[in-house]
Each structure stands twice: as C-alpha cells, then as structure tokens.
C-alpha cells in the first residue's frame, strides 16, 4: 500500500520533458513566423548555466506576449534525466520551457545551432528567420545582459 501511494505520488510529480533531435533545431531556425526563438543550451551540473536560468525565466514571463519564445535545451546525459534534471526543473519552476537534446553525437548538431559555437556550455541562439535575426552567444549572461540582447534585436517588432 505504501509503495502504491509512493508510486502514485511519484507519478503526480513526474513531468514530461519532450526530447528533440537535430531536425528540431532546423525547424526553429527556418520557422516562417514572427516569433523570436531564444534557444539556450544548458545542463543541470553546469554552474554558469544554472546561474543564468532565472534571467531566462524572467524573459519568458515578460516577453512571451511579444512573441518571444524561450526554449531551454537540456544537454544532460540521458541517465540523469529522472534523478537530476526533473527535480531541478521542478525546483527552478521552469516546467514547460525545457526540452531534452536526445541526439548523442554533438558533431551532428552543434554546427546547426551556429558555426560560431565551440560546444562549450552555456550557449544561446536568438533566431527569427523572417526578420533576419540570427545571433549566437557562447557566454553566460550577467545581470540584464540577456534582456538587453533581446531588446537590441526585437524592438518595434
């Protein structure tokens, strides 16, 4: 009975993290719409990534009505999804923003994000094809740098 309750509770808490493959990156980059995709690549063990997550959440909350879509692409190992990533996502209140990169060989998708990216985490792509926006940042955003970077490309849109 206890085990049953435990399993039910576990289930209630378990959230689904969509997995993506390389093709999804191309889809976002080529989307024919007027949405700015802010695609951040992170991992739960990456200290600078974790430090900048609140600014992505704040960006989402403030700019979602202005067609800014924040996507946090988790690059943790598959084996850490249940034990580390899901608890982390709950704790940071970023359910709904996170997808998991299921592609195993980064060499097949890092260049799709940007040829400027060496693969070091964190990295962030701002992209909106119809407005000709494609900007990559291999860095951790400090303070209001993320919002300023978005404002720089996404004003009066």
């Amino acid at each position, binding site marked *: 009975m206890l085990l049953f309750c435990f399993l039910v509770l576990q289930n209630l808490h378990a959230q689904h993290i969509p997995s993506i493959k390389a093709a999804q990156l191309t889809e976002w980059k080529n989307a024919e719409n007027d949405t700015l995709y802010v695609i951040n690549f992170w*991992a739960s063990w990456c200290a600078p990534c974790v430090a900048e997550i609140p600014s992505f959440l704040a960006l989402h909350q403030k700019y979602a009505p202005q067609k800014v879509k924040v996507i946090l692409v988790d690059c943790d*190992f598959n084996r850490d999804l249940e034990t580390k990533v899901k608890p982390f996502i709950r704790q940071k209140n970023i359910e709904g923003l996170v997808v998991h990169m299921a592609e195993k060989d*980064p060499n097949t998708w890092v260049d799709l994000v940007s040829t400027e990216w060496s693969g070091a*985490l964190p990295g962030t792509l701002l992209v909106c094809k119809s407005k000709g926006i494609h900007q990559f940042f*291999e860095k951790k955003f400090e303070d209001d740098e993320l919002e300023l970077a978005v404002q720089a490309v996404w004003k009066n849109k």
Partner: protein
Amino acid sequence: MKKVFALLTVVFAALTLSFQTIAPEAYGVGDKAADFNLKNVDGKNVSLAGIPNAKGYIVVFTCNHCPYAQAYEQRIIDLHKKYAPLGYPVVAINPNDKVAQPDDSFEKMQERAKDKAYPFVYLYDESQEVAHAFGATRTPHVYLLDNTKTVRYIGAIDDDSENPEKVKVKYLENAVDALLQGKPVEVTSTRAIGCSIKWTKK
C-alpha cells in the same frame, strides 16, 4: 602622413590584440603549435620537446570537476595506454581558474591523478596562456599534433560521451591511426559539448 600611418598601426595592433582575446580556436588545423612549459602533477615542468620518443602528441584540455571530462577520463587513460607506446602520448592540461572552480586547483589535480593512477602527464595551465594560444574553449577539448607540432585534428574524442560502449565513431583514434599509417586525416575537426573553461576574472 607618417603620423597617420603610425596611428593606424597602433589602432590596428590594438584591434588585433582585442580580437585575440576573444577569438576562439586560435590554432586551426594545419597551424603549428608553439611549445609550452607547464607544471606537471609531480611538480616537474614539462614541455612537448622534452617528452621522449614522441612522434606527436594528443593534447587534451580537461579538468577534474566537469562531468564530460569525468565521462571521458577512463577513455583518455586508455588512449594513452594504447598510443603512447606508438609515439602518441596524451598530454592532459587543466586550464581552469582555481578561484572560479576550486575543484580544479593544482592540489586537487594531484589528488585525482593519484587516485585514478593517470599514466600521462597532467599539467596545470595556471596563467591560461596555453589554453588561449590553442584557442581551447571547453573541457574536454582535444588537439592532435604531429611530429612537427602541426595541428592535425581538433575536437571530440568520439561520438558518444555518455556511453563508451555505444561509440560508433572514434574520431580521435581514426585521426591518430591515419597519422601512424602516413595517410591523410579524413575528419580533421568535430564539435563536442563540454564545460566552458573557467577563465580568470580580470
């Protein structure tokens, strides 16, 4: 006119310098790497030229704390055991700032090298000059050098960091094997995910 020229030279030099500090991948494939002299975990300094019987070098920027570096640790040990006798030893370099990442201090490097019985040199790039010169950005980040210290391959060790048993393409081994056989390296660079190098805050 001379003054203008001198001024332009200064501006150009300043621009070049500022680009150098941000430019990733300072060495590309085909570039000749400068030798260096860094402290090994045994306390002795090591330079490439001082490594005996080397036909080339597998230079790996790596560290203690990064899960990707840890995932590759055994594979780096195995690489050295396989290729050092063939003339391609692993030269591991930790470029991380110890303030930004205390787990990557020289003392912690010594502990890890001892615990895991590293068969290769594990060097401390405290000034980060070597990482800057190579253009390393993450750990692990591999540079394969031939006998003239020319960079022949840059990138990942293989195509599956998480599961060594599921690896399909051993990018680095393929490159070393090609050099050993005197053949051209087919895949000369690959991308990999890794931990960003923890640069010293200035």
